[in-house]
């Protein structure tokens, strides 16, 4: 009797650790996907080049490793959760993680598809292709973004070494992962509720906001004195 109790405590602790691992991995995934988006925005523009595309591949592989590991752990977490009566709250937390991961996966997948499309449209195989790049005003500056990606650590990076697929296969693999996860575990995603109220994020980043006002002024200041007076009246 007591050994069973001790075993379930052990299980709870293990599950708690696994959840913590998943949460950290989720944050890492968010960082990597947002960096990927910053890189993808420059595709086809004057800042495009082989360096950018290599960086995108690196980012993508990292994201893929995190995704694979996270999906395996979440599947294990949520299919184990059934028999043990570990409480409704635990299940809710796991379901929230599940929903967050699937949303992140969908978001990343749409970015990947967009990138795939753009690379198809602007293949930089020959010298002349550079003439078709769009002059958008971005010169480069993805070096810092690449550094940010390199600083990401996922809990299981050191453990697993698998091969990295190219873009088409990557997309196919993620789609398969998405449908498999949705089929294997029935989670009612609409029952997950947000932990934050609307607008709560605005107070959260005090330290990072010093440079922001000048940025806003720069964006608005492009209008300068040319903007007609009644523009403000139409801004409703």
């Amino acid at each position, binding site marked *: 009797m007591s050994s069973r109790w001790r075993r379930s405590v052990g299980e709870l602790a293990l599950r708690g650790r696994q959840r913590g691992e998943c949460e950290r991995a989720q944050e890492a995934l*968010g960082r990597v996907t947002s960096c990927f988006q910053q890189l993808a925005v420059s595709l*086809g523009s004057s800042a495009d080049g082989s360096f950018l595309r290599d960086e995108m591949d690196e980012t993508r592989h990292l994201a893929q490793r995190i995704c694979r590991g996270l999906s395996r752990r979440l599947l294990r977490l949520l299919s184990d959760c059934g028999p043990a009566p570990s409480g409704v709250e635990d299940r809710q937390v796991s379901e*929230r993680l599940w929903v967050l991961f699937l*949303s992140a996966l969908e*978001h990343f997948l749409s970015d990947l598809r967009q990138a795939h499309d753009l690379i198809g449209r602007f293949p930089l195989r020959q010298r002349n292709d550079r003439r078709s790049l769009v002059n958008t005003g971005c010169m*480069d500056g993805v070096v810092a973004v690449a550094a940010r990606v390199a600083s990401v650590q996922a809990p299981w990076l050191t453990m697993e070494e698998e091969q990295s697929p190219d873009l088409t296969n990557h997309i196919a693999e993620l789609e398969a992962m998405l449908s498999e996860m949705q089929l294997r575990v029935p989670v009612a995603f609409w029952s997950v509720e947000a932990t*934050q109220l609307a607008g709560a994020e605005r107070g959260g980043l005090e330290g990072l906001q010093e440079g922001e006002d000048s940025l806003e002024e720069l964006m608005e200041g*492009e209008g300068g004195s040319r903007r007609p007076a009644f523009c403000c009246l*139409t801004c*409703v």
Partner: protein
Amino acid sequence: MTIRRARPDRLQHFRPRMHCLKKLEAVVVEMQSGVKGSEQKLNVTTIPHVITGKDVIAWITNKMKSTTEESEAFGTMLVAYGYIYPLQNHRKLVMCNDSSLYRFQTPYFWPTQKWVAEDSDYAIYLAKRNIRKKGLLEPYEQAHYNHLHEWLNHKWDFIVMQATEQYKAGKERRKPDRVVFDCQERAYWIVNKPPRRTHSAMDSGLELLIDPNSDEKIPFDTYRRMNLFYQQAIMSSKVKSSVSLGALNKYVATYKNHDPFLAPCLPSNPWLTDNDSYWTLNMRQVEVPTKMRVERWSFSLFELLRDLRGRDDFKVFLKKEFSGENLAFWEAAEELKWGTASSMTSKAETIFKTFLVPGAPRWINIDGRTMGLTVKGLDHPHRYVLEAAQTHVFLLMKKDTFFRYLKSPVYKEIQKKALNPEAHNFSPAQLEHNAQNRSPGIHPLILWQLAEAEKAKAAAASVPVDVKALMSKLDRMK
């Protein structure tokens, strides 16, 4: 975790209006080497690749060998689709033929036919903006934000996390690139979720079942049907083209001054100038109609009867002539045609008693054959039972009463009294003023109440004139 669409997916997601995007992209890519870019100097940085409106329009005029107006329209379409965005006055998606500044949008933010802008992406953008502007979103953005917070509540944590991460990732870039990226993103969302009074080209219109990009394979059955159709077309009776063209010619000559596309509306077209005096002057109940309206009544009896104000005038004339029963019968037959099915038997009975019975108070004079058919049909009344009689009456009115009306003093008087409003001539500042002070119009309830009051008055006035009583009154007066 997204609910893709509320309605079942019947493969209706090919957006045909976006079919032109492939050609537009080719043009934009060509423009890269053609249009000269310059640098934009801001407070602390300079950003390259800024183009002026007039350079773009000159390039388009040169390449497409078109006029300046067409190039301006084409340029505005490029801005409205989001391939080029304006740097000053970012809400107005037009291309001005002067030195206003624009920049090319990065291909990541180009519009695509395959995908619609996602709601969760918009939510992430709004959350990022919320962070950046410390809660001071524009009202329409705030409304979208609240709506999305409710609908995407299950993934809201993800949205906030992603927005924070994207914000931090954006900060890693150099300042000029950050400015450019923020402008690009803002321009993308202004095109896809336009604020009020911004006209972007992203309306998707009807969604088709057929993919306009794919080639169509015509099956065998279609050819068989085409054959049948053409065989029948050969055998059908035809009108000589000279005859039909003559009719078309006459129609165009008659109506060309009344078409709002070909001739300017007096005083001004409300859709263009946002001034609705044209509509108020031409309302149903107006005392004095406009000259154009009165002229239109003279074109045919159909036009006269269709305009209810003209019908009123015609009734005044007929009352003077004591021959109102034809029009009354015509109106009653219209009411039967358009009325509810439940009222049909009662209406048919009243019509029979009032108009068709020999010796009825408002007996109409139609030929014996039509009368016989109608009376027989009224045993089992249906919607179109009075069709033959109504046509006969209409022809009677058209051949006789209508021309007398046009020569009558009633019509001539209303022609003299009719208003001829002066054309408005608004300056652009006045047009903007009009656009902001648009009146909400008349509430439909009020219109309905007026119509009901009108109907009650007409019912009271159309108490059947008893011919015998009238004749005896006249005798007594003598």
